[in-house]
């Protein structure tokens, strides 16, 4: 099964074509660029690039998998609306996966996966051998709860939020930023993909309420 995978929950604009056969996953083509403001310009060309690299057309794609955050809203929405509209346009199903799972899902031991939530905060979740414990959260890196930062908490932290705020985290952080792994997202959606589960209405993991500040001029 040929799957288009997208994630724009971090400053990495990412698209990939992933082949899924029973339990085998194969990354056919992949585009990524670190550009926290470039989602709307870059994502669509990346999809076209992935298709071209694989010698395929949009009609060859059988399902879409999208990271649904948490992530900075504006960029996150670009990936999600792209996934939803592509799937609708191609008449194929779309499935959402928590973007942090694309980082934490690849970890071993007790890991804190963290992405940059802007405003000096991180989106995070704790993983035990790649399995998430509880729902994703947002908080200041220095204000993680005791069960995460204290003894018996996470052994290490990984992700763009971890590397960026390494100095404020009480958990040792990997210095190289890691972004959601699109193959992992497809793997996590595999049961739904293979069983032909119904297409989903993608709802972002916002974790924050909107700032209720009206815009100056209307259009």
């Amino acid at each position, binding site marked *: 099964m040929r799957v288009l995978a997208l994630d724009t929950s971090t400053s990495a604009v990412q698209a990939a074509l992933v082949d899924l056969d029973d339990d085998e996953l194969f990354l056919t083509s992949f585009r990524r660029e670190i550009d926290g403001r470039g*989602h709307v310009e870059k994502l669509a060309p990346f999809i076209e690039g992935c298709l071209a690299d694989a010698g395929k057309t949009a009609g060859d794609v059988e399902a879409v998998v999208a990271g649904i955050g948490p992530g900075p809203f504006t960029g996150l*929405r670009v990936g999600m609306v792209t996934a939803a509209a592509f799937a609708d346009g*191609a008449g194929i199903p779309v499935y959402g996966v928590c973007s942090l799972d694309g980082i934490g899902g690849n970890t071993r031991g007790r890991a804190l996966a963290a992405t940059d939530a802007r405003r000096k905060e991180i989106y995070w979740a704790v993983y035990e051998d790649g399995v998430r414990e509880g729902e994703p959260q947002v908080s200041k890196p220095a204000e993680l709860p005791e069960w995460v930062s204290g003894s018996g908490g996470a052994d290490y932290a990984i992700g763009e939020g971890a590397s960026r705020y390494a100095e404020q985290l009480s958990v040792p952080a990997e210095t190289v930023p890691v972004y959601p792994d699109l193959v992992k997202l497809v793997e996590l959606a595999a049961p739904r993909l293979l069983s032909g589960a119904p297409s989903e209405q993608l709802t972002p993991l916002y974790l924050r309420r909107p700032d209720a500040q009206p815009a100056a001029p209307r259009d």
Partner: protein
Amino acid sequence: MKNDSARLSEPVVMGIETSCDETGVGIVRGTELLADAVASSVDEHARFGGVVPEVASRAHLEAMVPTVQRALDDADLTLADLDGIAVTAGPGLAGALMVGVGAAKAYSIATGVPLYGVNHLSAHIAVDTLENGPIPEPAIGLLVSGGHSSIMMVEDLAGKVTQLGASIDDAAGEAFDKVARLLGLPFPGGPYIDRAAKEGDRAYVRFPRGLTAAKDMERHRYDFSFSGLKTAVARWIEARRAEGEDVPVNDVAAAFQEAVCDVLTRKAILAAKEHGVDTILLGGGVAANSRLRTLAAERAEEAGITLRHPRPKLCTDNGAMVAALGSHLVAAGVAPSRIDFPANSSMDIEVVSLADRL
């Protein structure tokens, strides 16, 4: 009357609009409106007295695909029937625009239908073709909305639109919102002021007409200013209350509205006369205002100018206007946009579409 085969050969275009608080998807064939689906988040903004960008963006994402489906159902078409997909690339709220642009690009890639990134303001002009047919060129466009108040010279709707003048401060629609708040009327202010004004006396008090004094007419001949008017209304209300008297809401609404409509129509007629143009197109959300329509019609008739405007529902933001402009571009043979175009919150009013830009 065109025959059926000619009609069927006209481009079928879907337009997507998400520049503010309306998620609009319209479908046209040539200049025939086939669908106009709109999902509005306006009620969610009312208690804030203005559009909250993040609330609007969230609503766009939720409504996007369902609104496209609704438009296709209404038009009894599938995506495969489309000859073009047009989307508002700007101006507007950045995060809101990105939802529509992202969706349009994805639909275009998934279906192979050519994509056109277009200007929201030109779309406000183009929508008139759906009701009144092709626009005689050149024409003067009077575009009045919550975000813009401009006089435009439309030499070629497919590519040559120039701005003759614009508001140097608040947009007319913004002034309506602010004065509505002063009068204790709900948001958005336009329809409420219009309604109250119908019961009021336009000549109750004469509020200032911005940029109409002789020296202003030299420097700002076709420009507008509404912030002084808003302040004048505020002062007048304050003074009245200080005297312990009630504020006659209907009369103030009528007098304020008269000041706005007077300047807008006076300058638009002047622009038409001075440029030898005999058609004025009224567009934008404020063009739904009944007094603006009446006054513009009266003055146009006196001046021997044809006034055109679509019905109120097509004046406010919608996808049909974007589809109308897209259809015009396809028919004119304008090249589609490149897939990497940005959403541009401050898109230049004179850029009709991103079609010809590399």
